[in-house]
């Protein structure tokens, strides 16, 4: 643990008018972590994601990624820095095919200029083919290669969730933020998803931060959990501690799981 943390929130606060959505939240993520962010509805979890990915600028406090201050940097720059996310309410490029969705993610690392694209020079063709191949590999990881040419809007819900993960993976991030990846999935789909998340962490060497409401899923998957309520931190630690923490039980869990 001698190296500096991959992501560090330092007293991040964001205020919308009179509402403090995230209040003085600080936590650190080390490389290779599987980190869970939980809390009741409206606790500020997705807002946390939004300030990390540059959708909002924090009112005060700082966010460091690999030791560099990234608070207030625009979304597309943050994606280039190596943080990519999925969305709570799925945001696929609906009219595009499954493969094209993933290629958009991979396009972040493109090298040829727009002119090559407009004139379809050999290097643009080569790059396009290369991006498609890479995208195909990612689709295999999330078990979607058989529907690569379908319109993404036509996929069933669970597949759309996995496609969002593949699309985010295509940007080659170091840190992957998953916003309720298991929402609306059946138990079997959840098990598949768990496999995918483990593979992402172990084979692809990514750090994962995820928001989730399904306690069984989070407790089984994450190594550390951070609990938010009304913008404030109420607990932080390994799943066993969280499960028995009286504050968490009162605010969120209701009774021990």
């Amino acid at each position: 643990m001698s190296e500096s943390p991959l992501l560090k929130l330092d007293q991040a606060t964001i205020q919308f008018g009179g509402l403090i959505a995230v209040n003085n939240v600080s936590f650190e993520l080390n490389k290779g972590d599987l980190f869970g962010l939980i809390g009741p509805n409206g606790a500020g979890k997705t807002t946390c994601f939004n300030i990390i990915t540059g959708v909002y600028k924090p009112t005060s406090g700082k966010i460091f990624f690999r030791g560099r201050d990234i608070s207030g940097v625009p979304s597309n720059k943050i994606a280039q820095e190596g943080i990519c996310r999925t969305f709570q309410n799925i945001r696929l490029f609906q009219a595009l095919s499954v493969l094209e969705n993933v290629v958009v993610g991979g396009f972040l690392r493109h090298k040829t200029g727009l002119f090559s694209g407009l004139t379809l020079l050999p290097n643009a063709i080569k790059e396009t083919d290369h991006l498609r191949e890479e995208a195909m590999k990612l689709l295999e990881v999330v078990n979607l290669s058989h529907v690569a040419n379908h319109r993404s809007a036509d996929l069933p819900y669970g597949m759309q969730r996995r496609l969002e993960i593949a699309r985010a993976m295509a940007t080659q991030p170091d840190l992957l933020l998953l916003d309720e990846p298991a929402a609306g999935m059946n138990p079997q789909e959840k098990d598949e998803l768990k496999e995918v998340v483990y593979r992402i962490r172990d084979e692809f060497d990514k750090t994962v931060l995820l928001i989730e409401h399904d306690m069984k899923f989070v407790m089984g998957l994450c190594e550390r959990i951070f609990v938010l309520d009304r913008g404030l931190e109420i607990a932080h630690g390994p799943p066993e501690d969280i499960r028995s923490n009286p504050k968490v039980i009162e605010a969120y869990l209701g009774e021990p799981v």
Partner: protein
Amino acid sequence: MGKFWTVRIASVVAALAGCFIFQTVATNLGNDYYLRLFLLAGLYVTLSVSLNLINGITGQFSIGHAAFYMIGAYTAGILTRAYYEQQPLLPELWLVIMMLAGGLFAALAGLLVGLPSLRLKGDYLAIVTLGFGEIIRIVATNQQSVGGSYGFSFGPKVVAPWMVCLLAIITIAICRNLLKSAHGLPFLAVREDEIAASAMGVNVTKTKVAAFVLGSALAGAAGAILALNEGYLNPDIFKMDVSFLILTMVVLGGTGSITGSALAAIFLFLTIEIPRNIQTADGQKVQITLASLLMAGLAIAIAISLLRKIKDHFHGPPNQRLIRNLGVIGGSIAGAIVLSMILNATTVMGDKTFEFDKLRMVILSIMLLVVMLLRPQGVLAHHEFSWDFVKRLFRKDHDDKAEVAS
């Protein structure tokens, strides 16, 4: 690599052949009026495909495309008036330079209007572009140096039909290449979901501005061709109607489809121009009675309602559906005629008549109405013409025959 160059050379040869055919047809029309229609139809292809890049592919609702067309035309006109006499170049070469200049100025205007207003979305952007179009036109109307509302003329005229065709081909090629390579995907991603696109590392502003600049530049080049072809310009040529006509072409053809925009441009342009010239055998304008107009409206209404029912409840192979739909349309027309006879419409409504050419815009709007009711995504929707499709058609045909034989 070998294949790449084969395809490239073949496309260039095909494009040149296309220009040659266009030129031959244009010069053999034998009538200046038809020649002008022919050229304008070609220019409208460029205009609608370039607007499709902004509206259809990048999803930015712009309705001021005539402004960029106008800027290109006025740039060419003003420069020709000022400098043509002092230079030794061939008229055709001058035309190319004017297209570049017109394109450049239109692109600058696109950048100027694009940068501040692209933070707006949907209707708000539409209002800004509409306003921009009007501002440009009114500025020209009040500038005495370009003749105000009377316009100004300049010489010489450079009539180069092949250039119209070449520009249309270049425009189509640019858009098609963009969609074929991964470089087109950020544009489509911005259309689909800006927030997600941004989260995937797409620079949304840069992408929108690129689309605006590129689309405007192509429209500006088209304007330069128009200017040198006419030798005369006035602000009324670029009224709001033109913007809306181009927009209608894009929407009708299928937002996002290059093939759709190009075909709709030709089709719509001819639909509003041909009725101007329909005459009876003795050279009179064609008259239409009120009764027959109402019956035509009735026939269209019956056909739409039946076709919508069919669309909701029946599925089948496309050719069967086509035959059924055509049957319904034919039936509706026949039904309307029978009805008009039973009701004795002509006698009841008297002999009030309209001139057919005054109904051009009515026909256009009814057509748009029908398409929007039956196929809101446009005639071709997102589909594109491709050689694979043609091949499949033939192969299917072949397979069918084989089945029959066995």
